[in-house]
């Protein structure tokens, strides 16, 4: 069984037609439900639901406080390599882009890690471009072992791997897996992932599942807004998270809402996720999935992030660098442009001023 079977159920589903028939009463009733089914979720994603955004935000806030309290988990990304063997039209690391390529040596990883650890944040996400050749399993294991000396929680965002390979990484100390489907619409997926391993839609779709089976305690998924139809993509992301949460009870699930900004390569997004719809989707995620982590990266600007904190965000990066070696001696181009350019201290101070507790450490290496 795969999430693909769930996706197939909607191949001929008329979203536009469904949305036309959604009434204000239906939306209000969905907001007020204790447990929302998939149609309630869809009602909240309907354009008309924007008329009830304040009500959605109030409920989202309430659920978030009950489940997470007034806290926000902090993490930082470390880019260890930008070599990539795939050609993805929207990505700054795409193999076609003539950028300076760099892979950190293990010694450099250690130096970067030490620098990042000075922030006091104990959770790290390490990323590579998708090149199995340049950054093979052994290298990823070595990087993990170095990071584990400085951080208690290590997650990865690398090329999709087999369950067996994930088991090796889990044993080496990896705790969590981040993998974005990018787009759940298969046709669009094929059109933007031109060549390379990443063009395999199904293999990528089942990646979180293989990670769960391998033992990772947290899975972070999402769509990259800007490629497919906004409401549909949000709907499938939520369904995917719920599918995983019913199948792998023990996994903590997270959703991110990355939207395309100015990366290298001059890609013009197919769709634009505006701020209002962003908040609508975030609230819909929260109401549909009360315990899911909602992760807001520095792709979003400072003011917007600060406002999202009070609604239902539970995870923030703070002072991120998206260049390889960015914390010590940045030379390469970033994967994407950062909007929130504050350093981690500033972000943390702001979180406290807003009446929230920044969580530096939320796991112990056991």
């Amino acid at each position, binding site marked *: 069984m795969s999430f693909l079977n769930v996706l197939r159920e909607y191949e001929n589903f008329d979203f536009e037609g469904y949305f036309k028939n959604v009434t204000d009463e239906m939306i209000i009733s969905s907001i007020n439900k204790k447990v929302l089914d998939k149609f309630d979720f869809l009602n909240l994603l309907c354009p008309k639901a924007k008329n009830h955004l304040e009500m959605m935000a109030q409920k989202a806030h309430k659920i978030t*406080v*009950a*489940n*997470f*309290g*007034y*806290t926000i988990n902090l993490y930082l990304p470390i880019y260890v390599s930008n070599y990539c063997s795939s050609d993805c039209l929207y990505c700054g690391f795409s193999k076609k882009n003539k950028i300076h390529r760099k892979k950190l040596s293990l010694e450099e990883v250690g130096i970067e890690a030490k620098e990042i650890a000075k922030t*006091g944040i*104990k959770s790290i996400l390490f990323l590579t471009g998708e090149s199995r050749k340049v950054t093979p399993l052994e290298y990823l294991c070595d990087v993990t072992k170095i990071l584990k000396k400085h951080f208690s929680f290590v997650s990865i965002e690398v090329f999709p791997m087999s369950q067996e390979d994930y088991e090796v990484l889990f044993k080496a100390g990896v705790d969590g897996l981040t993998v974005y489907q990018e787009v759940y619409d298969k046709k669009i997926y094929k059109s933007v992932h031109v060549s390379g391993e990443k063009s395999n839609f199904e293999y990528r779709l089942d990646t979180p599942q293989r990670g769960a089976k391998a033992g990772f*305690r947290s899975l972070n998924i999402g769509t990259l807004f800007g490629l497919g139809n906004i409401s549909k993509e949000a709907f499938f992301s939520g369904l995917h998270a719920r599918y995983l*949460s019913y199948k792998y*009870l*023990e*996994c*903590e*699930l997270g959703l991110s809402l990355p939207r395309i900004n100015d990366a290298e390569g001059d890609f013009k997004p197919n769709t634009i996720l505006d701020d209002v719809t962003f908040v609508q989707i975030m609230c819909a995620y929260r109401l549909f999935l009360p*315990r899911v982590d909602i992760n807001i990266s520095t792709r979003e600007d400072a003011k917007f992030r600060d406002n999202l904190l009070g609604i239902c965000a539970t995870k923030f990066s703070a002072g991120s660098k998206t260049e390889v070696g960015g914390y010590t001696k940045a030379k390469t181009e970033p994967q994407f442009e950062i909007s929130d350019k504050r350093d981690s201290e500033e972000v943390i101070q702001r979180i*406290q001023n807003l*009446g*929230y*507790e920044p*969580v*530096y*450490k*939320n*796991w*112990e290496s*056991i």
Partner: protein
Amino acid sequence: MLKIGDKEFSSRLLSGTGKFRDKNDIKKMLEKSGSQIITIALRRVNLENPQDNVLNYIPKHITLLPNTSGARNADEAVRIANIAREAGCGDFIKIEVIHDAKYLMPDNEETIKATRILAKDGFTVLPYIMPDIVTCKKLEDAGASVVMPLGSPIGSNAGLQTKSILEMIIENSNIPVIIDAGIGLPSQAASAMEIGADAVLINTAIATASNPALAGEAFSWAIKAGRIAYLSKLQEQSQYANASSPLTGFLNL
């Protein structure tokens, strides 16, 4: 007095450190509520960062109750318990084995396993469980110092949804019964004490109140009132009040 392991406590309110807006609120809450035991998730204990280290916000006379939050099975719970002991958190351990990240429901089977191992190893074990009489008996045999059945799901503030089972557990138990999770109001805490619970653990309701210290105080009064009500046998009186038409009148007793 509430006796847990080799320690005695005058307060029957156990508190927690999670979900606060500001760690400085914890100390004020402890002062106002009189709580003498506080649970801390080992996963959050940050020995390297004194400002972030929750242990630095808890006065020394308070008994620490580290918990194994994040453990997915007995083995992970045992590992976390040992790290907590090494970190200087003492011998009390609250076992939380959660195999369901959605509703945070405890896994009784794995909890029993972990209890057996940790009790043998000299820990004072306080296991958090789904209310179930058979599990409680097995935990007693495994060496648990108390049992901590949930009132309703964590963070739900739904009160004693499991009340009828809790009453049976209290009736049958030879070790203290502490109701943990789901209590959102002082009146609910009072009712837990009225039915004979030995103590309650409150975290979310206190931590997320606009004034946690005041909320803690409210709970402490409610718990005291509920305890006295239980001791005064108020409950029994109301349950079996004198009927106006006696059923045994014909016997001319």
